[in-house]
Each structure stands twice: as structure tokens, then as C-alpha cells.
């Protein structure tokens, strides 16, 4: 390739991303070790194609105003948060409808949170228990004053409510004091 031709071969210049028009640089390379770090922004966004797989009927239930758990067919262990195979006997579970009313097993008030939920703070998280159901269910509790939390909330009777516009997330159901 001739010199003239070689000059024409260029990686295209674009004006997207980080552009720094002037970077201080020392004359003596020895001075580079004192240089402050260059820190840039690197965006990263992904849309996942997330399948609920065998748990899908739970979300279909919420869209239809039903809170579903599962019960192990062989050993009868009952899961408030569904799983289709029993942790204890390995048997296959069947879908069952949970009662609308349960009790607060424990709770917290989140004043901070993951970036996704920061705008919703302060919000109340609870684990719900039901008599005869062996495991618990994580949900939001609405209708209490998040600024006045109290241990008295443990044991509180709560009732399930469903979002009208289903988002196919576990928050399609939430609880209020019964």
C-alpha cells in the first residue's frame, strides 16, 4: 500500500459515547504514575426473556383474582409460595387456592431499597402465614402507617387484594389489614 493510500485507511470517527477533547499529558513519561485515574460511564441494559415455567399458573391465578399455593400430592406438605416439586419427598405438587385472609408472620419497613424500588419507599414488606400451610409468602402490606412500625404488627390479620391491571409479577397481589 502506498503512503497516500495508507493515509486514506481510517477507523471511522463518530460523535457518540465519551468524547474527551483535551487530555493533559506530561512531557516526561515518568510523571504518568502520578496521573489521576480516568473514570468513564459504561451503560448496560438488558431485556431478559424470563419464563415462569412450571410456576406460570400462579401468575395466571393472580390475574384472575386467585392466590395459589401448592400441596405435595404424596406427603401433603403445603407451600404458600408455590413450588411444583416437594423439597421433602420429591413428589409432584398440585395447585391449591390459599385463603384470602392470613396473618403477618414478620415484617419490615424499607426506607431505602434497590434502585428499582427507591421511588416507592417507605414501603412495608411482610411474610404472610396461614394455619395449615407449611410455608410463608412474601408480599407488600398497604394501609398501615410506615412511619409508625410496631412489633404489634406481628400476628395482624391481613387480607389479599389484587391489582386490576395485572403485571404478571408477585406484586399483583398485596395485603391490607383485614
Amino acid at each position, binding site marked *: 500500500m502506498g503512503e497516500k493510500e495508507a493515509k486514506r485507511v481510517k477507523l471511522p470517527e463518530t460523535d457518540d459515547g465519551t468524547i474527551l477533547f483535551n487530555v493533559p499529558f506530561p512531557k516526561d513519561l515518568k510523571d504518568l504514575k502520578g496521573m489521576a485515574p480516568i473514570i468513564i460511564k459504561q451503560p448496560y441494559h438488558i431485556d431478559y426473556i424470563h419464563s415462569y415455567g412450571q410456576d406460570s399458573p400462579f401468575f395466571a391465578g393472580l390475574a384472575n383474582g386467585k392466590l395459589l399455593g401448592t400441596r405435595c400430592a404424596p406427603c401433603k406438605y403445603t407451600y404458600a409460595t408455590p413450588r411444583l416439586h416437594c423439597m421433602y419427598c420429591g413428589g409432584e405438587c398440585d395447585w391449591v387456592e390459599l385463603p384470602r385472609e392470613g396473618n403477618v408472620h414478620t415484617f419490615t*419497613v424499607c426506607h*431505602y431499597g434497590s434502585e428499582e424500588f427507591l421511588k416507592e419507599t417507605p414501603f412495608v*414488606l411482610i411474610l404472610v402465614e396461614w394455619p395449615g400451610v407449611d410455608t*410463608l409468602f412474601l408480599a*407488600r402490606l398497604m394501609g398501615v402507617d410506615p412511619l409508625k412500625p410496631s412489633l404489634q404488627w406481628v400476628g395482624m390479620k391481613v387480607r389479599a387484594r389484587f391489582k386490576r391491571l395485572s403485571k404478571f409479577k408477585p*406484586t399483583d397481589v398485596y395485603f391490607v389489614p383485614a
Partner: protein
Amino acid sequence: MRPVYLVSGGVSKFAKARPDVTFQAMVKEAYDYALQDIGLEFRKAAEIVDGTVASYFSDHFMRQLKAGSMVQDYLGLCPKPSKRVEGGGATGGLSFQAGWEPVAAGRYDLCVVYGWETMSHVNTWKGNEFIALASDVSFDYPVGGFYSGYYAMMVVRHMQEFGTTVEQMALVSVKNHNNAFHNPYAQKRMNIRIEDVRASEMVAWPLTMLDICVMSDGAAVVFLASEEGLNRLEKATGRRLHPAKVTGVGGGIDAMRMADRPHGGVILLPHEKAEDYKGLKYPGVHSFRAGRMASKTAYQMAGITNPMEELDFIELHDAYTSSEIQTYEDMGLCRYGEGGKFVEAGKPFMPNLDYGYRFPEQGKIPVNPSGGLIACGHPVGATGLMQAVFALWQLQGSIGKHFGNEQLQVKNARRGAIHSHAGTGTYVAVSILEKGF
């Protein structure tokens, strides 16, 4: 199985952010310290090390997959074999044990375990989001995924079940921050009181900012050796080394979703009786069954029947003041339900330090003499290895040399435990270390 020795270690100063170095160079700081401490030359190490384990938690924090191999080449350890181990918050403790395994089995005579995390690359609340992805993304995360919230729910149940108080939790923060005041490696070195903990900002009721560990950039490295490896090192350095012997490794795990934890019977330690726990539903969400399982198996291997009598100190995973209290119980330092009273009596404090409080039984068994995660910081992949390094220095009696002061040296320390724990008590790893010289 062959005996395994922890021979040397190094820790980078944990900091909120280390933009001045990349992760590889940060690990090298800890690695070089471990080399220099035993007088081992860089090239010689590369020659005599048989293999390594890379300990780091989150690919999200890094936005760099296969980062382990990049540390391996920076440390000049190519083409020696290596693998990465990951298990949430317990990554460091699990990696320590993963380094122990090939040495015990006879595959390696000398194994380096290096760990790090660079959590400053995203903002704190995005970081919390990444950590919350270590909960079930179908059923837990979307409800308001936040680890501090999960632990808060666990301790609310502990308070309800056993009468544990927020002041008892605050005492853990007082202890760990005040200890760290004497530890130059710690990120937060403060003399604080119960009131300071309660007055700091509420994060997830009842846990405040000072009840919770902070995100951190940091690295830690350990050298593990068989007797043959130890001889090799002594020959290479021309020095008589002062190792710790790894006499017990234990592990346990529990269901990812807290909602799934059973409400059954307590797993008993040798010094406990079933009658101690009549009517207690276990573990529920108030206790960590994996922590009990890990302790039980580690104690069994080390021949420990009563940890309170047979351990001189513990470095345990205090991501939250509440989880330190819950862990006293899992590790059998007191009965389930008595963790709050245990700290109130002063038992886990250093015997020699003045915390501004009078305790009836101060210093029975120092827990987190280093300041733990709450004060040192929690760069996830490094944390469990940091515990191992601090434990080694305790057993060597070399805290003064490494910290520049003797305040945190546990007198005549002969046997200690390190405890590493992941999200709401999923993975837990407990290892027992004894003076090996």
C-alpha cells in the same frame, strides 16, 4: 486427608472506592503483602505454587466475565490451574475451603486463594439491586428486593420470639466499630455508642445505617500448604514459618426463599439437649439452619464439643448486627434465643478495651476482634479470606506487627473459627484454625 496449613496472607486496605487501581492490581497488593511477609520472591512463588482459587461474587459489579483469569495472569501464575468459586456473601469462606480441598486431597501442595470485589463501580442503590438479584427473581426480588429488608424481617421475628432488643443489636455495632478503631485495614474506624446507632438513619426497620455493613473495594489473599508445601516454602524462603493448621471445615445451606424455611426441630450441638428447645419452631426465619449445620460439621471435624470452652476467638460474618446475634446462637456460643443477652453481658467484647460500658462478663470469647464486616467493609469475595488472614495473625501473635498496635491481639490465641455467610443464611462456611507451630 492430609493436614493443611494456612501459611501466609495479605489484605488490601478496604475502601469505599479504589479508582486508582483495577481489580488485578488491587489483588496484587494483597498478594505482594503475603509474599513479602514470608520473604517469598515473586518468580519463585510462580514456580512453586501448584494452583489457585479465584474468589469473587458478582459479575454484575464487574461487568467483566472470567475476571479470575485476568488476576491469574497479573499475578504471574499462568499457566498454573485455577478455578472460580462463587456463593454470594459466603464466597470468601467457600473459596478458602475450595483451596483447602485440593491440598487435603493431595492434588496440590501449595494453593493460593485470592479474592476481591469492586463494588464502587455502580451507585449504592444499584449495588443493592445487584445483591437483591441473589434472591428469587420470580417471587422475592420483584416484591421490593432489598437484603437489608430481608434481614430486618428475620430479626423482627427474633425480637418477637425471644425478646431481643434494638439496644442489644446496637451493642454489636459499638463493639465492632470500636474494635476497628485499632485496625488500620478497616474502612470505618469509629468510637460510637448505642445512641449513635439508634440515631443514625433508618434503613429497614429496625435496622439503621450503623447496624449494616458497607459496600467496599478490597482484596485478600491466602497461601494454603500441605506439609510438603510448607517444606517447599521454608526451603524457598530460608525461613522457619509460623502457620495455622486448618483442623475443621464445615458447610451448610438453606432454601433461597426465606418463605420456604421449615418450622421444625433444632439441629443440636453436642453440648445441647432437645429439652432446651421445647416448643421452638426452627429455623423459621429467626435463625440460620445453614449456620448451625456448618458449625456442627466444622466442630465435629476439629473435635470441638463445647465451642465456648474450646475456641479463643471468632471472626464471623456480621453483615448486620442482628445476624451477628443470630450467629452466636447458630455457633452454639449460647442457646437459641439468648444471643441478645450474650452481647449484653459483654461476652463477645475484647477483654482489654474500654467501650464506655460496664459488662459483667466482658471478653469471654472475642467475636470479630478485627471489627468484622460492619466496620472493615464487605468487598464480598475478599471478606471470608480477610477473616482467614486476621485469624492467622491472631494465632501467630503477630497482630501488633501487622496492625501497628497490640490492642486487638487476643492473648495466647490457640484456636479460632472463621464464619462466612451468604444471603439470609443460604450458604454458610465455617472453618477452624489452630496454632500450627
